[in-house]
């Protein structure tokens, strides 16, 4: 329950902090950090324009996408307190619930019959497929390290004992951070601020969405950021009491947002054709963590 509230709170400012960082680094004052939320609220009040080509799939997809993100949010724990739903192997459910949302956002993009949106959908499907092994190997390794199989137990038992576990936590944070960027279609995979439809990934898929549906998609995006942020936080807080962990939660979330903003200010997007290899290379970092865990446990023969 606690994690649910904290993630919801973090979602209010996460994207705003990213945007603010970017504007400060480029020498602008920039909008307030709650601007993304205000945008969403404004969209909720608006009417919608639908394409003639679309069917009911296009109308239900944003709702299902949003629900899948909320469902994923329910299984994320916070330190010692469980997520609202917690069971053995819940991280599999986490990944698969998000995949259902992705399934619908992809077919909604294909429903418009636009070649741009089809292109974006194809890329989204490809990238998320490549990101999945990294996530599963990472969680598998952590399950091996702790001997547990649910998010909550894994993170609660992820003691930061020897110095190599610190290295593991940092590497895991890196992998999760990169997955965040891929899942949220950010630099260096995708450039949310691009104005050319041909080079977009996620933005182009939602070109035809408007009004309430667009609001749902954007708010799902806000939530996704803080969900992954919360996973990263969980790597570090472990068994500390709440008076430290709750401020730490916000500190790490803000830090993550600032880092993302900084990366986006100074980096250009990768070449589209190299993205897949790059994402797949993330799996090797996960494998590094896996071998690290084997070493920590002394199971390397």
């Amino acid at each position, binding site marked *: 329950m606690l994690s649910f509230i904290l993630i919801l709170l973090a979602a209010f400012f996460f994207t705003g902090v990213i945007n603010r960082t970017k504007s400060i680094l480029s020498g602008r004052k920039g909008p307030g950090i709650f601007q993304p939320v205000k945008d969403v609220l404004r969209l*909720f009040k608006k*009417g*919608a*324009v*639908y*394409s*003639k*080509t679309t*069917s009911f799939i296009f109308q*239900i997809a944003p*709702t*299902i996408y949003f*629900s*899948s993100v909320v*469902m994923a949010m329910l299984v994320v724990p916070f330190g010692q307190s469980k997520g609202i739903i917690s*069971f*053995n*192997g819940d991280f*599999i*459910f986490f990944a*698969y*619930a998000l*995949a*259902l949302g992705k*399934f619908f956002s*992809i*077919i909604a993009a*294909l*429903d*418009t*019959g*636009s*070649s*741009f*949106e*089809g*292109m974006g*959908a*194809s*890329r989204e*499907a490809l990238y998320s*497929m*490549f990101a*999945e*092994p990294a996530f*599963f*190997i990472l969680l*598998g390794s952590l399950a*091996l390290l702790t*001997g547990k*199989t649910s998010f909550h137990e894994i993170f609660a038992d992820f003691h930061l004992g020897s110095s190599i576990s610190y290295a593991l936590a940092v590497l895991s944070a890196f992998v999760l951070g990169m997955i965040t960027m891929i899942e949220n279609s950010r630099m260096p995979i995708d450039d949310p601020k691009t104005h050319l439809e041909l080079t977009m990934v996620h933005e182009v898929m939602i*070109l*035809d969405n408007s*009004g*309430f*549906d667009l609001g749902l998609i954007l708010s799902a995006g806000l939530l996704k950021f803080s969900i992954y942020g919360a996973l990263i936080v969980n790597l570090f807080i472990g068994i500390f009491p709440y008076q430290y962990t709750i401020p730490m939660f916000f500190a790490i979330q803000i830090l993550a947002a600032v880092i993302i903003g900084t990366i986006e200010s100074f980096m250009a997007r990768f070449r589209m054709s190299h993205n*897949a290899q790059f994402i797949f290379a993330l799996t090797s970092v996960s494998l590094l963590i*896996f071998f690290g865990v*084997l070493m920590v446990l002394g*199971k390397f023969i």
Partner: protein
Amino acid sequence: MTEWINASWIIALLGIFAVSLSGSGIKGYAAASAILLSSAVTSWLAVNALIGQPLDLTINAGIFLGDIPIRIDQLSAWFILIINFTSITGAFFGTGYLKVYENAPSKLTLHWSLFVLFHLSMVWVCMVQNGFAFLIVWEIMSLSSMLLVIFDNHHLQTLKAGLNYLVQMHISVVFLTVGFIWVYSKTGSLSFDAIRTFFQTNNNLWPFLVFFVGFGFKAGFIPLHSWLPHAHPAAPSHVSGVMSGVIVKLGIYGIFRTISYLQSDFNLLGEIIITLSVLTGIYGILNASVHRDYKRMLAYCTIENIGIIGIGIGIGLIGIGTSSPVMYFLGFGGALLHVLNHSLFKSLLFYSAGSIFQQTHTRDMEQLGGLLKSMPKTALLFLVGAIAIGGLPPFNGFISEFIIYSGLIEGIHSNSMYQIILMILVLAGLCVIGGLSVMAFTKTYGTLFLGQPRKTLDHQPHEVSRLMLVPQYLIIALMLSIAFVPQFYLNAIGNILLSMRFPISIDTITIAFYSGSAAKIGLISLIFIGLICLFWLIRATLTRKKPQATETTWGCGYVAPNSSMQYSGKSFTKPVGKLFNSLLIEKKNFEEFKPEEIFPEKRKYDSNYVDFFESNFIDKITKYLIIGAGYFRFIQNGRTQSYVLYGILFILIMFLLTIFNLIK
């Protein structure tokens, strides 16, 4: 009990008579009711077996065959129930599907008689427990299904597919025969019980692998899979649905049956099967994502699912080898549940693909599009099937994949480094399979049903008849029951596993624990659906009074877009094709531009993907076989005199060999 067993085949025979006597309009109904009645009988026996009263009797089949044990134990019962359900839905769907052939009664008579025979032989494959009798029933099954495949016999392609299937099934039979003879030569008995005694005293590895290859042909493990992508598209859709849903699973049944007699080498065999299965899964789904023939795509997807089932079997074997009852339960349980799940959603997908084919007469998805508007019910059915087969919650595919995943994670907590590494790689492989299947099915669904029609069809597609839709609704009802009440099915699977005789045993507490946690997932799936409905209600109330407008799709300012400018399915998965171009071989047919060609003329370009194993191995082997066989062509010279000479030579050689005591 004998009367029940006899009833099953007597009903089927009467059904065949009824089919031949009845008018062409009701042949399908006659076959379907025969299957329904015969299924009722065998299902009753199977349910009895599942709740703990296995059937065990012997039929004396004369001097030559001797006593044939007929058994319905828990394992057979599970498969019999799956066969019966899918065959019933297939028969009713097929009745609607073949309505257009009413003016060809002889064709329909042959088809429906064979369909009844096909169903009967599949059920009997699960009951007969004598090597020789098993091979006979197995052969009846293969032959009847081959004849069902070549229903459209005026197409050369269909006949080729049928022959391909026939040949491969007989290579499979050769392996099975070798296996049974191997057992017979050591134990002197063809009964299945002899396999157990054989395994107790002999090396387990090689004999098992012989059986595995034999059954693997039916199941479609790579590189033995190459009949599937030919036979499934060629067959009428209800036949492909039943073949893909059930006949392929009988290969799995055979593997399970052989495993149930194993005595040692569990670990090694588990590792072999699990590795092969991951590769099968990835290979299958990679091919599924690039093919444009939607029925071939579904056939490759079957190969993928066989891979997932194989992963479960591998986990179970490793579980027995490392004496981990939890892995044993999760592995075999996940595999058995996925067998049921796959038989449901794959038959559903093949039936709805059949509905599309019946209305559009093309299997090329790139010529279709926007079918959701003309066939909304079929579109919804296909969507449910696509989500379920991708293993996504809240449908039943997720339950079985989740159990297999749990088995893998259980396997990670091991002391052997090799096992840990194997498990983590399989975990990665399984999630790649999941990701690719999302890609493959979004592509297929998007290209078939969404957007605008890519081509004006000669005949405007309409929604299919209720006779074709109702079987599909039934399948969905059963799928939802698995998704929301999985504990019921897992308890039944628990009974199957409790009845197997392995060096390790599981207790009812473990089963209750894991079926309890599956029940929790069922509940969470319900919550998930509830949440979607809740948000949908909120959306509906909030947007009711808001203005809504309809416009053309955003085309970046271009005002005259047309339907051929939509993204094609091929382009959708082209990045995958490029990344895995060593496995997905693309054959392109086109003419290069020549330098002197200043004003190029109209030209054609086409490309298609070919099967890696077929083009690199099977075709080459066949080519050399044909060349080799060419050297012996002089034997068949068409002159009667020579043939008489061969006979005389044969008798002479036999005579001489006997004289010199070389043969006795």
